[in-house]
């Protein structure tokens, strides 16, 4: 070192300890913003892709990738679920609906809330992104919640929009058929094929690599989110699910009332079968949730019992 910047020998002694050592798990406003922006950008990009992916339409049944669910699911698994969940659906609105000229007013708001809620619940269920099973489950939950809420809204529209909807013959069945089919295909394609499988592949690979790029500490399974957040997530999941079941139940009641009018035959079975797809999808979600809750309770118990 040359004379011009030689270490000074005068002055006060250097402070004994570093003046500032912040807890890396503490999320500053900038870090929150970063997670939000990243999640928004990536999901926006993913949606541009789904715009150009081909869709197969078989009558009312649309076999298409409604979104690449694995992208935001990976985000909520790796980062703080709230900010990632708030960012992702905005990405869809901004990048595709606004910039590509397809904005639809109130419907966007519905979509935003549905997906954000689904993602937040899903992210809160994951404690360790390295556990593929949990990540996959999160993807199914995220899509499931989003689509259940979507179904509730659609059915609600029929109730509000049609005069004395419950007395119109065939109406409930038609709507339920449509919703059931949409729900099952979405859960299969978006939730499983483009949700659970890729997310379970990507999340463990990105864990520990992507966080330092944002100056964040990786999510540490030993230091989970606050318990309150996790409990409220489960509570929300239960709430959404119950509302959905209640909605279906109300309609099934309509069906019961109308069974007498129906002529038994091929058509009814056909309709019923589709109905059962929707119901069984909901059942799958319920079972999954119960399993998840049990697994997490078990691991919590194990941790509590472990010596400190």
């Amino acid at each position, binding site marked *: 070192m040359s004379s011009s910047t030689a270490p000074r020998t005068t002055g006060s002694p250097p402070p004994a300890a570093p*003046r500032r050592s912040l807890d890396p798990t503490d999320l500053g406003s*900038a870090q929150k913003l970063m997670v939000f922006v990243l999640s928004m950008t990536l999901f926006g990009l993913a949606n541009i892709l789904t715009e150009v992916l081909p869709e197969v339409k078989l009558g009312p049944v649309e076999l298409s990738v409604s979104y690449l669910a694995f992208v935001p699911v990976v985000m909520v698994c790796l980062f703080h679920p709230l900010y990632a969940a708030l960012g992702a659906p905005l990405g869809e609105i901004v990048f595709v609906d606004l910039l590509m000229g397809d904005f639809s007013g109130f419907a966007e708001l519905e979509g935003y809330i549905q997906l954000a809620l689904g993602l937040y619940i899903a992210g809160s269920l994951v404690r360790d992104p390295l556990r593929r099973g949990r990540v996959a489950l999160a993807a199914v939950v995220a899509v499931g919640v989003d689509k259940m809420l979507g179904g509730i809204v659609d059915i609600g529209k029929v109730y509000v929009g049609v005069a004395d909807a419950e007395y119109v013959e065939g109406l409930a069945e038609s709507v339920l058929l449509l919703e059931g089919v949409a729900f099952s295909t979405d859960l299969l394609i978006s939730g499983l094929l483009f949700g659970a499988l890729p997310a379970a592949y990507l999340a463990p690979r990105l864990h520990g690599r992507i966080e330092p790029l944002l100056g964040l500490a990786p999510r540490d399974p030993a230091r989970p989110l606050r318990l309150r957040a996790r409990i409220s997530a489960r509570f929300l999941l239960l709430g959404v699910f119950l509302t959905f079941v209640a909605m279906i139940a109300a309609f099934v009641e309509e069906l019961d009332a109308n069974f007498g009018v129906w002529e038994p035959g091929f058509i009814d079975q056909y309709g019923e079968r589709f109905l059962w797809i929707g119901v069984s999808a909901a059942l799958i979600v319920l079972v999954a949730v119960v399993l998840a809750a049990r697994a997490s309770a078990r691991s919590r118990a194990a941790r509590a019992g472990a010596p400190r």
Partner: protein
Amino acid sequence: MTAPAPHTGPAVEVQDLVFRYPGAADDSLRGVDLTIEQGDFTAVVGGNGSGKTTLCKTFNGLVPHFWSGTYSGTVRVFGQDTTETDVAALSHRVGYVYQDFGNQLVRPTVHDEVSFGPVNFGLPDWRARTEEALDTLGIASLSDRYTWQLSGGQQHLVALAGVLAMRPGLVVVDEPVAELDPQRAEEVYRRLADVNRRLGTTVVVIEHHAEFVARYCRSVLLMADGAPVWHLPVAEALARTGELAAHGIPAPQVVRLARAVEPEGEVPLTVGQAVGWLSARAARPVPDAGPASPPEAPAPANAPHPPGPPVVAALRGVRHGYRTVHGGLTPVLRDVDLELREGERIALVGGNGAGKSTLLRLLTGLKVPRSGTAEVTGTDTRSVRPAELADRVAYLYQRPEQMFLADSVRADIEMYPRGRRRPDTDALVADVLDRIRLSALADRDGRTLSGGQQRRATLGIGLAMTPALLLLDEPTSSLDTATRDDVIAMLDALADRIRCVVVATHDMHLVAEWATRVVALGEGRVLKDAPPAEFFADRELLDRVRVVPPQITALGTALGMVPPPLTVDECAGRLSTAVQEAGA
């Protein structure tokens, strides 16, 4: 928010600064003591990873406010302790232009972008500030354009204008040359010098290129291992050629030439000074070309002349362009005929947007020409899929992170041979890793490597494809000079494996030191196809293709050397007799 009060002390004072990023094993800054006076134009130099950028981020408070880590010591900017003011307040005093300035632009139009800061801070004179910043940089005419429509150089000026609109006392610019072509980088420097002179703004640039430092800066801060080595006036700093070279910053070529002529004493910093300096020492070029210089008129053996070595790839009557808003075509290549032959090292030059990357992509088959044909080893690129063509052509992108698809360097290198089920994959990958000297780091993600290692890793990816034709897009951009020389040496060593190498580049040192043939693109055509010496002798053409020749070549031209020398040694050799005569 009020305007900062005038301050009489130094612009920046740093004392005992130590900083470590969260989770990092070592300190990034270890004991920095430093003073930068107001009105200075300081260059921060040092090898990749010496802590330059981290240091500059302490000036505007991003460290430690934004990057929480272990921090001790003090940084005072215009007398204010940065730990006691927040980033927003500091941004009135310090502006920062990033190396990846494109990501710094957040608004759609230029005017919005420049007024973003003043509007956010609710400054009542935001309109005046915006106009002023745009005028200062001479980009008022771009005001209503969308930022993504601009060229890289214009984007850089917009980023700078956005920073200047806050009327800061200090502007930090991180590596302006890295992503710009030389003429545009020159423009950025001229504007910075103008701001520094007229407004008295203190300017700090992070720079690898000693030539820009020599021409525009007043003082030089050499960083190594997270601490300053020295901070000296520019002439004194650049005279320490040995020390600079040891830290990966070889001195400007005229300085090296001067040292070759005279080992001690003052040195010239620019081409103009060098002409005077040499004439004062009666050093003149030998009237007849010396032994090192090839004869002027007939092209040397390596120039393209039929019937030469076999053709590896050819473009015939190629036209290509892009769709515009109105559905029309913007032509990029109008009519290109080109034959690439075995054993050639071809440099493709031309300004941003001249069609260099388009030409390379046509050769990979990723794009096919809208008319005309592109052939690689005799196969029309239209007739096969790009994946099949990849057996013969490898294309390495400008930004290494775009090449890192897998989660380790090894996985990236073996992706191609493993996918094609090459029986000798393991041996091939081991050999490639060995050649690029990355065996020890093979299991790391490419992104975590240093700049030079990243380039070597991408070269390894190309090598493992064992192509006949290797295409590289800007392989030396944003590398410090030592790392760049390393990459050039590696390119040299590839000669035995690959039949023909094409490099698209702005780096005229690479052209001068490595290429055997230069193809200059402009106006959608091949404007010149010649050996480097002949290319650099054509001054009118250099302007047309927006090329700034290496200092030594420019000096040779100024001294009337025909053809101009390509390296310092060659120039010294052709001068030496005259110097000896003068001495005798």
